[in-house]
């Protein structure tokens, strides 16, 4: 009798125990002079909140739609300024990281170009540690595609790309192109928040002109060839 009631109460408790934990990110998207987008993923649907501010004491809050993939846009930021932030979903929150808004008046500019990060998390971790320790810090990174070995397999986005690249991706916006190994998966469009139509886009105005990036997708080429 006692044992049965104990089992019943455990069964009743179990849904409450399913807390959302951060499993990807946070990572930076859509860097701009006065805004930025913070994304992360949680194990269960939860709130989307970013605490941020010019110092480690944060102080401001931005929110986005609840879900498992979280996307919070922070607007009204000051150009060319460093901000501290952390992602908050329910009881779980990330460490405090920093990002720096873009500057249209910078006289020098550093960025990183890389590609084909798939299938080798150990190497990705090694290289991302080197990228993350660059001094001066790059403004952004360009990824030429083939991010994971199979974009349709949801787990590989964590194991091959996001997990080995933390904390680098929490402080460096990565602009991606869609590679053939992404297989046009909805995962790509869910996990990244890219400018314009996302599949093909350009980024301008983050630095001294006339530098301009046009990222295209290998899917586009294979489709037209």
């Amino acid at each position, binding site marked *: 009798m006692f044992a049965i009631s104990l089992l019943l109460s455990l069964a009743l408790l179990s849904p409450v125990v399913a807390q959302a934990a951060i499993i990807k990110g946070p990572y930076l998207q859509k860097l701009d002079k006065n805004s930025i987008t913070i994304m992360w993923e949680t194990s269960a649907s939860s709130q989307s909140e970013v605490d941020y501010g010019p110092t480690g004491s944060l102080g401001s809050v931005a929110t986005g739609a609840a879900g498992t993939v979280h996307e919070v846009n922070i607007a009204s930021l000051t150009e060319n300024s460093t901000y501290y932030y952390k992602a908050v979903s329910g009881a779980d929150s990330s460490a405090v990281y920093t990002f720096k808004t873009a500057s249209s008046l910078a006289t*020098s500019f550093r960025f990183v*170009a*890389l590609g084909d*990060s798939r299938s080798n998390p150990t190497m*990705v971790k090694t290289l991302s540690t080197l990228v993350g320790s660059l001094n001066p810090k790059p403004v952004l990174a360009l990824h*030429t*595609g083939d991010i994971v070995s199979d974009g349709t397999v949801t787990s590989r986005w964590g194991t091959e790309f996001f997990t080995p690249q933390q904390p680098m991706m929490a402080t460096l916006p990565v602009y991606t192109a869609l590679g053939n190994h992404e297989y046009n998966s909805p995962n790509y469009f869910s996990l990244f928040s890219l400018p314009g139509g996302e599949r093909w886009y350009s980024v301008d105005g983050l630095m001294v*002109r006339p530098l301009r990036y046009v990222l295209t997708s290998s899917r586009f080429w294979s489709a037209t060839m």
Partner: protein
Amino acid sequence: MNMVFNGHDHDYERSEVNGVAYIVTGGYGAPLYPQSGSSTYSKFFASVNHFCVVDITGASLTMTVINSTGGTVETVSRTSTGPPVSYIVAPANGETIIAPAYTIQGRAAAPAPNTGIRNVEVSLDGGQTWHAADGATDWSYTWNVTARGNYTIKTRATDLSGGLETTGDSKSVTVSRTPSPELQHYSWDLWLSGGNCGSCHVPPNKFMGQDYRRDSRFCISCHNGTSIAHDKPLHGDTHRILADITAAGKTPVYGNITAGEYNNQPFSRLVGGNKISCVTCHNTMSKTEDSGRTREMTTTVDNRTYTVQWGGWAGSGYLIPRVYRDTSLWGATKYSKSVKRYIVNPSEYTYDENAGTITFASPQNPAAYIYVTLDYPYLRAGTKENALCSDCHTQTTHKGLNCLVCHQEHGSDNIAGIRKTIRTTDRTEKAVAFLRYTGSGSFADSSGALDGICEVCHTQTLYYRRDGSGAANHANGNNYSRSNCVYCHKHENGFSSN
């Protein structure tokens, strides 16, 4: 274009075609490929895990390829050569410029060997005429916009050896509405119809042959002129007009106003031949020293919450804001006599008096110009709430309230321009009947309506209280029923009895 980054092949390779470096960077982890062949374009190949770091300073570019131990695979440097290059940082292409002045900003660089910039020029007409910008490598140009419309801004730089830029930068922009309501009248003919000052004014300083500064016809050609300030005899009271306004350091109007008497004409005449007219208080020609009374609002990202840009409402008495929305003033319909159509219905928003914010229930059109004022735009007063009235009047306000809490600036059916309704301390609107100074319809007449100018607010008077209760007599034992309250509680003393 100097450099193109590609992926897919798991290696590093640099090819050069027509001065452009084509980089294959596919070495961030995927299984490495050996070199299977080579073309005449290929200048460097390495089967290595890597990433590329690109540094750009001015006309110089350096790419360093880093391997997995932090070593350097290859370093490539480029310096642009040829004519100087200028470009526009602001505005962006397609941007809408708000008249009347805009600062165009930009940069310029001169590649080797003439690495200095002598000057940068800006054209606002697509390259037909050129104007010198301030600065060189970091330049700006103040554009005094003279008409609405579409413009093509072009730039060209000259290097230290006299070499002229070949193409230059180009941005297409649209010049749109003026920045604030204070400027609307000033700019209406300039921007709306392509006219100029001469469309309305006959030099010097005359409107349609009249000196508009002392004539309201300019205003009432559009505005309803039946409710103009000071259009009624203001009782026998002198209203404490300053004896000599100019000597008191006040400059209330374009021209002179001397103290004197009112008559009963719509646009009252002061002794000395000067009139009170619309332009006594309103400024049709914005001047920099006139901040006006308008609080400009700006939107947040959600287009719902608008915040006061300057000034504030906390402690400003019991005025409610009037919120205006302007989407059409500069559109095809142009100006309308019906100014009220721009006033936003208060049911559309909530008002946080302490935070100084208006929050709309639904998102607003981002193109809408939202502004709020505690009284009215175009006033030529400064920042103090009572500055406009106190230019001429020396009354003291009640407990620091704004004159406009009790007085209707454009007059009313009540004497002394007392408002027909007053917003009281509990934020409710109370009807007010102020028809005479004593007796029925005076300050506090104990009629059941409790609509005397004192009754509408006071709960603590000994005699007439807004809730209808109260003792019959003052503290001194006297009964002042239907007496003139300001006989003892003088306006000039802030209605104190002392």
